[in-house]
């Protein structure tokens, strides 16, 4: 599996870009100006991460592909992001729950990647971890406020949690690429991360007076390029100019 590192880096880049794209859709629609600033700031961090990861992927690929090649010139099925990232936005509570569930995992993953033996990936992970740790604190604070706020806000975020929970199984299943990274580069131990994630998430949910749904059928497929129906539209919109004016420089 000579291209395992490349595939791993692209997965991370895809999840970062798709997460940013959904955040960007929310610009000018947030409940307060402070949330507007936070959301834009988080999206900027994710775009920055996608750019670093895609640039590195281009170097690993060795065929002269740049960051924009991976973002704009691959079709939907070539993307390998986690499915939770591509789900449509819904309301503010949905966005907070999605961010909380994903970033509770992502921060642990980045923390582990910061220790891996590929120096370049470790360096990117160190930088991203600092950003995501701050995002996660924000998402946790809002989750507690909404969960323990009014009856309406509690019901809304509990429903968001019930909806997004089924995308969390995919964080930990792992495949041959993950196994390769663990073996060859001292990459993340997904079993250990899963255990810590469950513990951390349970503590925050308890504070937010929310209940983790039980017996949920988990959805999988992002890493195999099997996406939701929504995803094709996200990609089509994002790539519109690059597709309409091939070869143009912007």
């Amino acid at each position: 599996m000579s291209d395992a590192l490349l595939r791993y880096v692209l997965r991370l880049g895809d999840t970062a870009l798709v997460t940013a794209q959904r955040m960007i859709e929310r610009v000018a629609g947030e409940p307060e100006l402070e949330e507007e600033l936070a959301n834009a700031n988080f999206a900027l961090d994710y775009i920055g991460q996608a750019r670093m990861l895609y640039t590195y992927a281009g170097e690993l690929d060795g065929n002269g592909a740049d960051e924009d090649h991976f973002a704009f010139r691959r079709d939907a099925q070539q993307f390998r992001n986690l499915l939770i990232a591509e789900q449509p936005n819904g309301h503010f509570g949905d966005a907070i729950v999605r961010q909380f569930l994903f970033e509770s995992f992502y921060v642990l993953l980045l923390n582990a990647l910061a220790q891996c033996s590929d120096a370049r990936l470790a360096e990117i992970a160190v930088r991203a971890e600092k950003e995501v740790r701050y995002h996660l604190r924000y998402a946790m604070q809002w989750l507690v406020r909404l969960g323990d706020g009014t009856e309406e806000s509690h019901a809304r975020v509990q429903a968001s949690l019930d909806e997004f929970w089924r995308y969390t199984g995919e964080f930990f299943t792992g495949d041959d690429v993950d196994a390769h990274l663990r073996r060859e580069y001292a990459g993340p131990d997904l079993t250990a991360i899963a255990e810590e994630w469950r513990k951390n998430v349970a503590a925050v949910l308890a504070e937010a007076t929310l209940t983790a749904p039980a017996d949920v059928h988990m959805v999988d497929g992002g890493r195999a390029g099997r996406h939701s129906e929504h995803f094709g539209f996200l990609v089509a919109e994002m790539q519109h100019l690059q597709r309409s004016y091939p070869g143009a420089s912007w």
Partner: protein
Amino acid sequence: MYTQGLDQKTKTSDKPGPLEGPEQLAEFQARVDAEEKIEAKDWMPEAYRRTLVRQISQHAHSEIIGMQPEGNWLTRAPSLKRKAILLAKVQDEAGHGLYLYSAGETLGVSRDQMVADLLAGRAKYSSIFNYPTLTWADIGAIGWLVDGAAIMNQIPLCRCSYGPYARAMVRICKEESFHQRQGFEIMLELSKGTDAQKEMAQDAFNRWWWPSLMMFGPGDKDSKHSAQSMAWKIKRFSNDELRQKFVDVTVPQAQFLGLRVPDDDLHYNDETGHYDFGEIDWQEFLDVLAGNGPCNRQRMAQRTRAHEDGQWVRDAARAYAARQRAKAA
């Protein structure tokens, strides 16, 4: 992003209040004339305060509404670099809105009240944002022309007599100048691109040129509040002076980009050393101001929807905070 409010009619009276004696007014004017900054706790004439509230809140609303036309291209920005730059710019605008609402609050009006006034149609925002962004080149044109015009208006505001506003403007102007450069750079890239890209740039220029000139407000002979605002050193240059300066600076830039200014009457006047330009269609300006621009309804509908959709979130935050306070007590 920009102010236009100085010259608009307002329903509130500008007559001095009962406590404002001629001596007090003279003393205030003497401080202004001596270029002293007026601070939030200082005495000020009620009309001065109202003028500033109107202008600052309108400026803040313009920043917030201005996020919409540019936000329209965030998901479709043609490269990751452009996406990041545009997002940073839109985020700056939210930040400008925040400083400006804070500056407004120093005059005794809450942010909630200012927002309520906007949503109820009692406060205005800059009409330029009632025009649509139809192609990527519009993002370049807005940065180059709209932010360029905004800077012309705003640099003198850094010396405005009201301290909190002047200080907010110093920071805002620094960021606006970066915004203008990114707009010009988008146009430059298009002007060096394919025929289709050049056409896109010219089309955007054709649509944004005249509305940008209108941003300076009515001509001096029709400008209602100018004299008083000048005397109070809120305003330092007349609308027509600033407009002329903008034309003089922008025409050579358009030529550099290989763009044709959509004005058959435009020519350089050797005697005055300025560009003479054609008549502005003030009827269009008044129509857009009256709510009949291409996007007035859409902009207000989106702002209102965002505000209403956020009500349960703000309620939850307040309920949670109240419960935490009760626990701590």
